[in-house]
């Protein structure tokens, strides 16, 4: 098995670097193998720094007391849940229009992380709402639209998982993600309108006139941590999907043989 020459299996990197160099699964696999641990380490470093600033440096909030510190996790996760849905739809559209294999793989790799951040956003919101509002859940416009976002993620993942044929699963999932992203603003505004029809917005997030700078620093650090974590996990998941799909190719066989030889 060692007769297979691993360098000849992926020659593209030796040629010029172009926009499409890493659209090749073999090249992406090696790049992601380098980037995933870097992103993972960055996530840990940013998270530790952010949590330290958030819990030990940032002052206690004058109105909400210590409870407010949940926002250091809540706000970044809620941001990521929305950003990742748009990213997923973007890669789905790229896959749809350019017929690029890696784009479909990205869309699939992003979905579980996006759903995880949505759950975390809802969960930390509930933990914050209990002491602040006195209830775990209200049908507030923001909460409701975040819940619907979770349903959209679940629908995408369920559809993709239900179709055995990879190509059809990719394209059907892409179509659903694109239809979903077109609907997101409609859903958001209808929910906002639905809520404000019934009651005034009595439960908006405590208006932040001016945030103390350590609070802002903590939130930014944790946002960076969430980004880095998302990149690391998506790279790892995309690598796994690449290996699964490219199992028949020479470079993947060579890689496996190389690993077994070690």
């Amino acid at each position, binding site marked *: 098995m060692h007769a297979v020459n691993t360098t000849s299996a992926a020659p593209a990197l030796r040629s010029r670097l172009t926009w499409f160099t890493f659209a090749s699964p073999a090249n992406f696999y090696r790049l992601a193998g380098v980037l995933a641990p870097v992103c993972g380490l960055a996530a840990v470093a940013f998270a530790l720094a952010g949590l330290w600033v958030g819990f030990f440096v940032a002052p206690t909030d004058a109105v909400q007391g210590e409870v407010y510190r949940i926002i250091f996790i809540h706000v970044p996760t809620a941001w990521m849940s929305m950003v990742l849905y748009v990213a997923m739809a973007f890669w789905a559209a790229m896959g749809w229009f350019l017929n690029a294999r890696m784009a479909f793989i990205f869309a699939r790799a992003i979905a579980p992380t996006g759903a995880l951040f949505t759950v975390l956003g809802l969960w930390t919101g509930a933990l914050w709402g209990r002491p602040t509002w006195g209830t775990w859940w209200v049908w507030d416009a923001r909460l409701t639209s975040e819940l*619907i976002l979770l349903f959209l993620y679940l629908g995408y993942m*369920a*559809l993709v998982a*239900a179709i055995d044929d990879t190509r059809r699963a990719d*394209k059907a999932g892409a*179509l659903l993600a694109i*239809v979903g992203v077109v609907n997101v603003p409609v*859903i958001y505004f209808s929910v906002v309108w639905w809520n404000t*029809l019934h009651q005034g917005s009595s439960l908006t997030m405590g208006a932040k006139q001016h945030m103390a700078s350590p609070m802002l620093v903590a939130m930014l650090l944790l946002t960076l941590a969430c980004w880095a974590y998302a990149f690391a996990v998506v790279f790892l998941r995309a690598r796994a999907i690449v290996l699964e799909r490219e199992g028949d190719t020479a470079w993947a066989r060579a890689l496996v043989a190389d690993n077994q030889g070690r």
Partner: protein
Amino acid sequence: MNGAVFVAVYQRDLRLAWRRRTEALLPVAFFLVAASLFPLGVGPDPQILKVIAPGVVWVCALLAAMLSMPPLFAADHADGSLEQLLLAPGAGLAVAAAKAAAHWTISGAPLVVAAPLLGLLLGLPAEELPVLFASLLLGTPILSLLGGVGAALTLGLRSAGMLIVLIVLPLAIPALIFGAGAAAAVDAGLSPSPHLSLLGALLIACLVGAPPATAAALRIAVE
């Protein structure tokens, strides 16, 4: 869009439904049964029932529409005629639109007609019944159009029924909000026309957007 294909598919679907009349009546039967479970579950208090009636009617219509979706393309897909149909130029769009139109005629229109009756059963005041009727008249075509996308995406899958519900219901939430909101607005002493206008806008958007999406999904499914 290929007009001849549209007319042919629409007429054929109506004829097939006419030959299996009992099957065609199942959605409206489900609608009536499901909605009459609510007084049994919530209790017969007329005050509560009056408040929840528009929402109950709308949610049951939504579920009835989604549950009647899986067979929309299934038989044509199974015997290969769907692939033949899609061969004609511009036929994808025509098939998608004709199937959604036929679904509304067969399953949606009976829901619209039965809705005021359910409203009466749930104690809805007489002045809200026409609004409920109008909101369903505008809203059920939206459900047929969105459901068509779901049916095409899940064509031939084992768990198509549950998947359609999971995929389409989040997309149908705006229709539910404005549809149920129209009757609730009358109850609150407001005009229902903003709700109905928004529902009409949603219908137009779905008329433009859903058939191409359905056609694309059909292409993927038979590829």
